[in-house]
């Protein structure tokens, strides 16, 4: 289970964020004492840090700058200070992403999983059962047979694969597609999923994508 540290001084926001992450299958670790945040950051063994900019006693950007000297654990800045200056500053101090409040939780998850994936997969090929997933070629390869996926199908398949065995909602799939400049509508999503199913059947995976009524899809 991925551990995510939350550094957010607004109590209600922190609690809701913890709950949100817990429900999504992460292990949230919330910082509650703001006197020695820097030490807590260094001591914590986590996979990702969500860091607010406006904190009591200290500025998130300064914390980040200090933290980067000793660690390259991914950090996502969460802030209501929505200016380009803050974003440029944060990115130059080594933030991996910059998300402004109020955030759409679906988009936040997308960012979190993208950042986690970037830091985890350093060239290792992803597998789906006995098929190799090639994001570079945009295809699935099983026993030498290659099945080409379209960009949309690949985005959908990736998201389902990252959360294999879990329910992925249509809303999440749609957000992921839009986030990749594919502004599809409901019908197009259904069409893409049935085409993806067809291609998986051809590779010998019948019933790979299960539909959960009113909830979403599960890749098995």
């Amino acid at each position, binding site marked *: 289970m991925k551990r995510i540290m939350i550094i957010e001084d*607004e109590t*209600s*926001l922190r609690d*809701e*964020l913890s*709950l*949100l992450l817990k*429900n999504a299958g992460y292990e949230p670790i919330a910082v509650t004492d703001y006197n020695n945040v820097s030490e807590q950051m260094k001591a914590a063994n986590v996979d990702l840090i969500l860091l607010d900019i*406006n904190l009591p006693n200290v500025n998130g950007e300064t914390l980040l700058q200090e933290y980067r000297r000793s660690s390259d654990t991914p950090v996502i800045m969460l802030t*209501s*200070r*929505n*200016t*380009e*200056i803050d*974003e*440029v500053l944060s990115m130059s101090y080594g933030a991996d992403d910059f998300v402004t*409040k*109020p*955030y*759409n*939780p679906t*988009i936040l998850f997308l960012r979190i999983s993208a950042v986690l994936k970037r830091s985890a997969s350093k060239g290792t090929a992803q597998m789906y059962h006995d098929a190799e997933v090639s994001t570079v070629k945009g295809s699935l390869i099983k026993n030498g047979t290659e099945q080409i996926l379209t960009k949309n199908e690949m985005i959908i398949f990736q998201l389902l694969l990252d959360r294999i065995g879990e329910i992925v909602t249509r809303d999440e799939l*749609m*957000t992921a597609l*839009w*986030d*990749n*400049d594919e*502004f599809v*509508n*409901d019908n197009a999503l259904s069409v893409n999923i049935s085409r993806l199913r067809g291609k998986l059947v051809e590779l010998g995976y019948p019933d790979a994508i299960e539909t959960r009524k009113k909830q979403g899809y599960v890749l098995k």
Partner: protein
Amino acid sequence: MKLTEFIRDRLIAYLIYTTIWALVLVFLFAFHVPVEAIIIASVLIMLGVIAAEMWAFLRKRRFYEKLMSDLSQLDKKYLLSEMLDEPEFLDGRILHNAICEADKSMCEHIAEYRRENKNFREYIELWVHEIKLPVAGLQLMCHNDGNTRYNEQLRRIDDYIENVLYYARSESAEKDYIIKPVSLKRVFSEVAVRNREELQAHGMNLKTSELDTDVMTDGKWLSFIIGQLMSNSLKYDATEIIVKGEDFPDRTVLHFRDNGIGIPESDLPFIFDKTFTGENGRTHKKSTGMGLYIVKKLCDRLGHTVEASSVQGEFTEISIIFGKNELYKIE
């Protein structure tokens, strides 16, 4: 200052001189002073008066001519006092001091307003950050409770908050943006994702092309601008938005076109004016006339040009023209 004007101004003085001289003449004749002596005295006194008057005229003229020409050349008339040399004649000095004092007082006055304005703006910024926290909290609570019913309203609240923030930013004289290369594609898709639910609820089709280009702008401001255009498209019944980038050697143009109800030709020149609502505002939906005004102000401040064209019932197209200045590029 013309000589005739000067003479007319001094007419009373000349009248007094003449009257006194006429009285003196009466006395001189009464005492049987020789006529030749009277003539010589008259001519000498006349010459003296003319010389004195000419001197007074010339030195006043030099000061006032410079004052008038400075005044007509200055685009900020209140800087006049900075241009003037102190004259040596008394009324000129009085005027000069008065102008300087008035100017100083005005500067103080303006500084005070500027300070108040800045404080107000800083408070707005602070307030916006504060109000966003409960909105963010509510949004997370809705998600955690599995309730999506309030999302639309929360998004609207957030939109209105952004409007206030950018209105304050657009009106302020302070430079709180940074110009750097920004990907049109990235900004557009970010705005689209943020508004995805509403766009899909309206059955909106988005078509983008040639957005793989960077423009010199402030990313956050541009994303607000595009958000405004998108919310107008939604407001005025568009079902399709076509966004296209066009690259020229000296500029990049972003075309934002929708197939909404369009703008009447007679309203078109005024759509960027503050609080202008026009025919669409009256007959259609609630319009504050602020959206496009803020868009224009922000574009002006960033140095972009914004243009609109429309055919009623067919389309509305807003084009933003980004300059390409090599000096901009600071790597």
